[in-house]
């Protein structure tokens, strides 16, 4: 780590003057550092810190979109309230719990699939073959396509009447009648998962590939000499060695999946079968203009993601402070 502490004066002449100048330079540098950080920190406070505080506050008020300023404090009523013999509030709303379940299901299934396929793609790309660079470039295409565009592309391919997927499945004789991929209650969640997995395999694959390329070759030579089966080598040598990189990729993906909005919004709009916490919260906030209630949903989503983040920071702490 480079700091002014390690600054050594090359001229051996007056040692005291050198030391004094060192501390002066150091103080100047620390002052400059804070000066440089202020614009960034102010921006983050303006776009992240303050809005988050306001969202927390709104969740305890009856604010509406038209009038956020004149909101009245109503305590926990947005979350849970007992009124005339019955419980009301977010925590009693079956649509909210449906969206919580949808989010968890979507996150668990899509992140698992992305991880498995990401590893497989990375292993293929790690092999030596002609045209490897071209294939690697091609694999980046799904990642490069904007989420909205990929949702639209797949919505067209999954179209119930004219979609190529139904056409293909019917030609192969796998189904007799066209499937309503994005409309049916059973299939729409899987349609969303297919699109998300398609789009994010490259991300996982590239992170895993980077880890694979840093592995020491001697373990593999030793394994080959001992005649150990490649599958066994993968589970016993490769997988443990790439676990740290894999963990980072999985947590990044998990955080993205938990706050998923655009792919589902475009593919199935506000359908309750696929509604996630983000879509639920935005619907309350913007379409129903109920900022208080929507903020309560946003707050709960934030707390869930904060929990995952804390776990991640705890895991990554060593790396963070390690080279300081």
């Amino acid at each position, binding site marked *: 780590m480079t700091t002014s502490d390690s600054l050594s004066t090359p001229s051996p002449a007056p040692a005291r003057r050198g030391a004094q100048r060192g501390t002066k330079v150091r103080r100047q540098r620390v002052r400059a550092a804070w000066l440089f950080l202020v614009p960034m*920190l102010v921006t983050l406070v303006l776009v992240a810190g303050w809005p988050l505080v306001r*969202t927390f506050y709104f969740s305890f008020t009856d604010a509406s979109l038209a009038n956020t300023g004149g909101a009245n404090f109503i305590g926990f009523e947005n979350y849970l309230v007992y009124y005339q013999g019955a419980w009301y509030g977010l925590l009693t709303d079956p649509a909210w719990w449906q969206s919580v379940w949808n989010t968890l299901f979507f996150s668990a299934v899509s992140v698992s699939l992305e991880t498995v396929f990401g590893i497989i793609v990375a292993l293929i790309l790690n092999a030596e073959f002609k045209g490897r660079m071209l294939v690697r470039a091609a694999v980046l295409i799904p*990642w*490069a396509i904007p989420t*909205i*565009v990929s949702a639209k592309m797949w919505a067209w391919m999954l179209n119930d009447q004219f979609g190529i997927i139904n056409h293909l499945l019917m030609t192969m004789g796998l189904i007799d009648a066209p499937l309503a991929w994005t409309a049916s209650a059973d299939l729409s969640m899987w349609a969303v998962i297919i699109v998300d997995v398609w789009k994010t395999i490259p991300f996982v694959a590239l992170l895993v590939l980077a880890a694979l390329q840093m592995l020491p070759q001697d373990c593999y030579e030793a394994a080959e000499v001992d005649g150990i089966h490649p599958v066994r080598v993968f589970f016993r040598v490769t997988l443990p060695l790439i676990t740290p990189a894999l963990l980072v*990729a999985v947590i990044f993906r998990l955080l993205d999946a938990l706050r998923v909005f655009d792919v589902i919004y475009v593919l199935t709009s506000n359908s309750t079968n696929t509604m996630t916490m983000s879509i639920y919260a935005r619907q309350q*906030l913007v379409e129903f203009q109920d900022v208080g209630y929507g903020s309560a949903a946003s707050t709960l989503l934030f707390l869930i*993601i904060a929990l995952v983040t804390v776990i991640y920071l705890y895991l990554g702490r060593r790396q963070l402070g390690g080279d300081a």
Partner: protein
Amino acid sequence: MNTKFAKSLAKRIGFWLLIAVLLVYAIFPFYYAVITSLKPSSALFQVDYWLNSVDFSNYITIFSQGSFVQAIVNSIIVAVSVVAIALLLGVTAAYALGRVRFRGRTTVMMVVLGVSMFPQVAVLSGLFEVIRVLNLYNSAGGLILSYTIFTLPFTVWVLTTFMRQLPMELEEAAIMDGASPWVTITKVFLPLMWPAMATTGLLAFIAAWNEFLFALTFTLTSEERTVPVAIALISGGSQHELPWGPIMAASVTVTVPLVILVMIFQRRIVSGLTAGAVKG
């Protein structure tokens, strides 16, 4: 000997089959969007795997609508401004975080990392209020401001990682010459930072170009919409009469530049993504 040869042949064929599957997975959906966009609307509802003739009427349709061209212009304005702001604030902050040791540095890094994990919807109502107070609702300025929430932390993080790797001798010489920190950044580090800045700038550009939730919520009229919102809101007579030809033409139009950029800078992008994730 013969069985050994057969076995290795089977292995090779299997491997190339795997590559073929991989290529179909990666390319086919986009390829299919391209051929759909080049079909006349009469041939749209017939499934074809390749093009029999090329027809540009879908492209003519979308470009003759002023709103789509306007959306492209808006997206470029927003994305370029966001990149410029994120890089300016990011480089100076990365110098402070990567080259100077001071109390509270780890805390600042934690805050930056924490903000990058914020779910966008959690700040939606608060940000809506901020944007309205600043009179930026339904304008490019509101989007530029709000996009810094995800571009800035990422930029700071990657550039800090990169700054730390530069040799300290460089800076010592500058300090000995009495250069101020600002001069040190612009004269010593900036020339060396271009590769890292190109990478983070490109990733920030892609993120801003693709953003949907804020763009949908903080704009109202079609004159201020960005490309993702414009595409998402293209609609026909009813839910079942979506004009798929123009939708695909618009999708291809906004994706081709990105795909070309990603192909050209693929090495940089991979290193940027891994620096942002693995080293973080």
